[in-house]
Each structure stands twice: as structure tokens, then as C-alpha cells.
């Protein structure tokens, strides 16, 4: 509002100045025209000049009055507008406060309503959840019982099958083991038979070293040489 009044005042001032300027130009032009038109008549020209000056003076006076009035009006308007503005501001502030209070009360009311609604909602949800949980528990218990019974019977059946299979396999493995043992025994006996002489050699070697004297060993050598001679081993 202040800005509008200021602009209005400014416009009026500028308008006054322009009006003054235009009138001046008109006057000067009319003077020039008069001077060229009435160069031959100085008395007329004097009267005209006086009249024109009088007219101009009246015009200026009127313009000044207009401007003064305009300014006065502008100031009055400005003052009234200021007053109006102040009263508007106070009205607005009061109104705003009212609105604020109203909004606050409405907000509090709404919040209370929302709180109570939310509480009711939560309660209902809790109730539903509890109901669901209990239903699920019952369902779970019944399903679990069924599964356990089914698993038990399957396990018993599997256990019987496995027992039977294990028994067969163990018997089979035992038979194989017995056969292997028999074969191993035969092989080892064969090896022992082959090695028996080597083993006897080792035993006899140790025994003879300990038990036979050099004389007895020497006798064995001569007996062997005699045996060789009998067999004609030394024939030339």
C-alpha cells in the first residue's frame, strides 16, 4: 500500500512538471507566432502579451492549485492508507491470531482423534495378531504331530531295511574275509615253506657258532672232503 501511494505521488509530481513544461513551450511558441504575426502592431502585441501573461499566470496558478490539491489529496490518501494499512495490519494480526487459535484447537482435536484412532487400531491389530498366532500354533501342533508320526514310521521301516542290508553285507564281507584269510594262510604257508630252509639256516648258523668248537667244525670239513673224494671230485 505504501509503495502504491508513493508511486501515485511520484506520478502526480511528474505530471505536474510535464504540464508546466508543455505550457511553457506553448507559451514560447505562441510568443514567437505573435511576434512574427504582429511585428507591425506593437500596441496590440503589448496587450496580447499582457493577456497571455495573465492567462499563463492563471494557468500556472491553476496548475499549482491542482498540484497542491493533488499533493494534498495524495498526502491525505497516503495518511488514510497508512491508517487503513495499520488498521488492516492490526485486523489482520487479530484475524491471524484467531485463525491460529482456531487451527491450534482444531489440530489438538485432530491429534487427539488420531491418537485415539491409532490406539484403537493398534488394539485391533494386536487382537488380530494374537488370534492368528493361536490359530497358527494349533495348526503347527497338528501338522507337527502328523509329521512326527509319518517320520517315525518311515524311520522304523528304513531301520528295518538297513538292518537287513547290513546283515547281508556283513555276512558277505565275513565270507570274503574268511576266504581271504584262507588264501592268505595258504600263501603264507607257501612262503614259510620256501623260507623255512633260510630260517633254518639262520638258526643253525647261530647255533653252530655257539655250540660247535673249531675242532668239531674242522671234523665236518674233513668229512665233507672225504665225501668229495669218494665221489671222485678231485679227479685230474
Amino acid at each position, binding site marked *: 500500500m505504501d509503495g502504491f501511494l508513493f508511486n501515485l505521488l511520484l506520478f502526480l509530481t511528474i505530471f505536474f512538471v510535464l504540464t508546466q513544461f508543455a505550457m511553457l513551450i506553448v507559451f514560447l511558441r505562441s510568443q514567437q507566432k505573435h511576434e512574427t504575426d504582429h511585428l507591425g502592431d506593437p500596441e496590440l502585441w503589448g496587450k496580447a502579451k499582457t493577456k497571455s501573461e495573465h492567462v499563463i499566470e492563471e494557468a500556472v496558478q491553476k496548475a499549482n492549485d491542482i498540484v497542491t490539491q493533488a499533493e494534498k489529496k495524495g498526502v491525505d490518501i497516503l495518511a488514510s492508507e497508512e491508517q487503513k494499512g495499520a488498521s488492516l495490519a492490526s485486523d489482520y494480526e487479530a484475524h491471524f491470531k484467531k485463525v491460529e487459535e482456531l487451527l491450534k484447537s482444531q489440530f489438538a482435536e485432530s491429534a487427539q482423534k488420531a491418537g485415539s484412532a491409532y490406539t484403537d487400531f493398534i488394539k485391533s491389530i494386536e487382537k488380530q495378531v494374537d488370534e492368528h498366532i493361536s490359530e497358527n500354533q494349533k495348526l503347527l501342533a497338528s501338522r507337527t504331530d502328523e509329521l512326527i508320526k509319518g517320520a517315525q514310521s518311515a524311520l522304523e521301516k528304513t531301520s528295518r531295511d538297513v538292518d537287513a542290508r547290513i546283515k547281508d553285507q556283513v555276512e558277505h564281507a565275513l565270507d570274503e574275509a574268511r576266504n581271504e584269510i584262507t588264501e592268505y594262510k595258504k600263501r603264507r604257508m607257501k612262503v614259510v615253506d620256501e623260507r623255512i630252509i633260510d630260517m633254518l639256516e639262520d638258526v643253525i648258523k647261530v647255533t653252530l657258532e655257539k655250540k*660247535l668248537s673249531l675242532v668239531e667244525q*674242522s671234523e*665236518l*670239513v674233513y668229512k665233507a*672232503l672225504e665225501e*668229495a*673224494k669218494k665221489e671222485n671230485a*678231485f679227479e685230474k
Partner: protein
Amino acid sequence: MDTNELTQEVVKTSFTRRDVSRRLRFIREWLEQEYFKGNKPDMTKFLLSKRATTDDIDAFISYGENFFKSFNKDTIYKLLHDISELIKKMQVIRLYIPYEPVPAEIIKLGAWFRGNVGNEILLDIHTDKTLLGGCAFAWKGIFRDYSLRYYMHKKRDEITKLVTEYVNKFYEESI
């Protein structure tokens, strides 16, 4: 004494190749000592200083003075060489026995071979404990085994059977 007689004299108391070569060495050193070093020490002391055995000393004594007089400064090496060549021609029996024989045993073995096989025999004695008992020998390129080990291998089946019967009997009695 000629080469043959000298050789016979050496071989008479030496039955193995090892003994023969050792005694020939002693003979050479003794003669070198006498003819080239100018002194003639006591034979026994000389031989002892060379670590000769009692049998070596006895053999040296048995050679006699005539044996050593057959050598002179000029003939030492030739005669010894000829004796070596004759000895190389002698037949050698490689004998394997299961014990290390003492010198007396070597003489006894040597005497048996000289008496039962021939006078021109030298022995090459080796110890082989795996023979267990008896002996084995190589003669004219043929190896003959008369050891206990050989007979055990020869009678292996019978021995195995005996042992098996004994073991079975033992287990039966123990059960």
C-alpha cells in the same frame, strides 16, 4: 740247488698261495740284506722284525744253508723270478670253509690235499660262514658244494615236511 729244487723246498712247507708269496718276499729281503746291505743279522730276529709268523720262521729254518747258498748277488732276482713262474704253474684249489683257520689248521688242510690230491697243489682258503658246516671248493673250473647249507637245500622238501608235522603236532598237543 737248481730252480726246481729251490721251488720244491719253498712249496714243501707252504700250502697256500698267500704263504708262498709272503715267504718268497722274506727270502728276497733276507738275501738283499745279506748281499746288498753288507750285514747278516740273526735270521730269527730279522724275520720277527718283518712280522713273520712262527711257521714262517720254522719254514726258513727248514730250508737249510744250501738253499740260501744257491743264491748270489747276480742270481737273486732271476732265481726268485723263475721260482715264482714255476709256482704260478701249480694247480690251485679255492677252498671255502665256515671258519677262519689257524696256521696249524692250514698246514693240516694243506697236508690232506697234498696227500689225497697231489703234491703240486696250492690252496686258496676263503671263509664263508653261510656254509654252516662242511666245505665247498672250486677245482679245475668246477664248483662243488659239500656244505650243510647245500644239503639242507637238497633235502628241503623232507625238512619242510618234518617241520610241518612237528608244528601241527605241537598245536594239537597244546589244544
